[in-house]
């Protein structure tokens, strides 16, 4: 059996290249003996036999030479035919189902079954109490009901999760409507439909919210200073990527911004208008669980530039530290550097990598201190402790200002959700290491809830008028393209976790403090 290679993509998601037979697909022991053969389509089973006898590469070459069959073999996660809802995506069994390599049916067991059951429960086709990771008759009935509700009939509504049904489930959760419907259902008690997690759920939840880079077998990757894919060694690539990141940020946040004059800054009233609407639309989704205080510029919304400028002015040592912090953040968080780390199997906290990185870090801090501090002052937003700091710059034209206002709208939704977090949830996640759930439950879960709000919005003319204010163009009231807010990559982990534990558990934990519903041990 050949080993699977596991890579972490720049956004933190794994990329699994399947090179072994189907039985080995589920990482973390998600595949069980009762799945053997049962889920495989006949053509796939034949190909697997061929792979076992002739080898994977030979089989792949053969299949490539026969276009009619390429659709069913050796699909790779990240190949362009992937599940889109994060609650399903990257689960190898679910992706294989979507790729018509297998089905999920009566008798199957494992986390992939739990995810299907929880989706059916969140969609209203299965009682949440029936979610147990075992595909029994009740689950088959629920799948059949879902298939029928989606217009399938006859043999297509057979209670088996095949590629078509997987696609329908994926689409069903694409816009997060089921979660919003649950949150806003006035007839449902806030704890109705929550469920205690079993040991397998807790294990899977722990894996979902962990962001540490690991190989498929759970060990740290092996560091390779040089790799065949690039002529430059690790440290040369990192130095170039770090300098490029500083230059890119300085251009985007400092050089391309207008002078900081009152005429170029958004007035507080404009910020308050957008913030008030952000609170209103968030309360419309989660208001049954909790509402927070009003948001007001000068009180819990502040000018990030002013705050950080005052901090830098107050202490040269703090300014030095800010420059160092900015470089450390780029080293650990820049997409380009994460990609290089992934390609070289680098773990920056390890001695060998740290020794290579230390002189680069020092050199960049020294040479580019002024730019780093400019970036620090001009970073778009930060938040914590019920406080939101953001930039007030206006853009050079109406379209740019509309972009800024929509970005502000998205930021405030996210930050307002933060203010709704129950103290017991704060305590719970504070007790977790950052890369083992602490950060995912803090920022990822918040961003996931913010996403539920954002994706339920209809940006019709009245909403656009309110957000765009003086920059609204009545001649083209719906014309402005609205970019989705920046999201933490950890929101993906949060959504994956919700796919296992259900949105009812997640909301009860986050808003009501019922952390027993997300317990990990």
């Amino acid at each position: 059996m050949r080993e699977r290679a596991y890579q972490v993509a720049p956004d933190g998601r794994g990329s699994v290249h399947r090179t072994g037979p189907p039985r080995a697909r589920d990482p973390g022991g998600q595949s069980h003996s009762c799945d053997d053969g049962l889920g495989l389509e006949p053509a796939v089973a034949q190909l697997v036999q061929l792979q076992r006898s002739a080898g994977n590469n030979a089989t792949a070459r053969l299949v490539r030479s026969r276009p009619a069959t390429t659709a069913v073999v050796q699909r790779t996660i990240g190949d362009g035919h992937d599940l889109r809802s994060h609650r399903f995506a990257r689960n190898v069994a679910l992706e294989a189902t979507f790729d018509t390599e297998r089905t999920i049916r009566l008798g199957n067991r494992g986390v992939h079954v739990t995810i299907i059951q929880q989706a059916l429960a969140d969609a209203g086709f299965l009682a949440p109490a029936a979610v147990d990771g075992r595909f029994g008759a009740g689950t088959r009935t629920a799948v059949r009901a879902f298939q029928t509700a989606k217009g399938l009939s006859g043999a297509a509504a057979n209670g088996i999760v095949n590629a078509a049904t997987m696609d329908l489930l994926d689409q069903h959760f694409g816009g997060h409507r089921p979660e919003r419907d649950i949150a806003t259902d006035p007839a449902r008690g806030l704890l109705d439909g929550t469920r205690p997690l079993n040991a397998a759920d807790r294990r899977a939840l722990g894996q979902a919210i962990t962001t540490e880079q690991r190989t498929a077998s759970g060990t740290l990757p092996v560091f390779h200073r040089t790799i065949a894919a690039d002529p430059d060694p690790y440290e040369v690539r990192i130095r170039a990527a770090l300098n490029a990141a500083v230059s890119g940020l300085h251009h985007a946040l400092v050089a391309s911004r207008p002078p900081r004059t009152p005429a170029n800054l958004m007035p507080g009233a404009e910020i308050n208008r957008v913030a008030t609407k952000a609170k209103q639309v968030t309360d419309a989704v989660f208001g049954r669980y909790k509402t927070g205080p009003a948001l007001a510029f000068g009180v819990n919304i502040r000018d990030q530039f002013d705050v950080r400028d005052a901090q830098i002015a107050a202490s040269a040592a703090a300014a030095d530290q800010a420059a160092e912090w900015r470089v450390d953040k780029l080293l650990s968080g820049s997409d380009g550097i994460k990609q290089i780390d992934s390609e070289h199997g680098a773990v920056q906290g390890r001695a060998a990598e740290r020794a290579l990185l230390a002189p680069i870090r020092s050199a960049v801090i020294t040479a580019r201190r002024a730019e780093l501090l400019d970036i620090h002052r001009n970073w778009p937003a930060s938040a914590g402790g019920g406080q939101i700091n953001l930039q007030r710059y206006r853009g050079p034209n109406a379209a740019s200002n509309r972009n800024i206002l929509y970005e502000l709208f998205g930021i405030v939704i996210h930050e307002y959700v933060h203010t709704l977090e129950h103290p017991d949830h704060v305590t719970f996640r504070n007790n977790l290491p950052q890369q083992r759930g602490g950060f995912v439950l803090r920022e990822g879960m918040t961003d996931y809830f913010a996403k539920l709000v954002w994706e339920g919005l209809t940006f019709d003319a009245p909403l656009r008028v309110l957000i765009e204010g003086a920059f609204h163009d009545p001649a083209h009231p719906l014309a402005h393209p609205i970019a989705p807010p920046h999201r933490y990559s950890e929101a993906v982990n949060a959504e994956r976790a919700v796919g296992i534990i259900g949105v009812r558990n997640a909301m009860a934990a986050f808003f009501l403090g019922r952390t027993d519903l997300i317990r990990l041990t």
Partner: protein
Amino acid sequence: MTPWDAIARRDFTDWHGLPADAAYASFDDRFPRLSDAEAAGMLGSHNVPARYRVHVAEGYPLNLQAWFMGSRLVLIEADVPRLVGAPAELFDALGPPAATVDFTWDVLAVPQGGHIHPDRGITVFVGPEGQVLRLALYAPTDVAHYQTELHHETKLTELPFRPDTP
């Protein structure tokens, strides 16, 4: 000198804490509000919910944040206060702190920078060069109560930004 006078003069060398039953209304009468809006947050490691308003006073470039529970004023915070005297005068007057704790100022960690003087009702957040970065003012208490019920965590997280996105 009343607590309000000390705050107005930015002189905390003779500070002995807020009155135990300090009324927010009294503070509110003395220091104008920046805005009538009130906000909420959590205090201490026990995450005690509290509300606050922002008030204006000379020499406090980032204003005063007055936290209250019901009608009771429980905590006043000031970032980068312009003290009337040198920081060393304040440190001498307060004596050695009962406890020092790490704190995070925005995104920057300041190890052992939080100097807690619970019997004087003041915590001074001291920067790497010995300057006063922040003040927390409250009624005299003990270290444990300050940490569990009053300390305001000011650690911030930056929102993600990708320069390639419009």
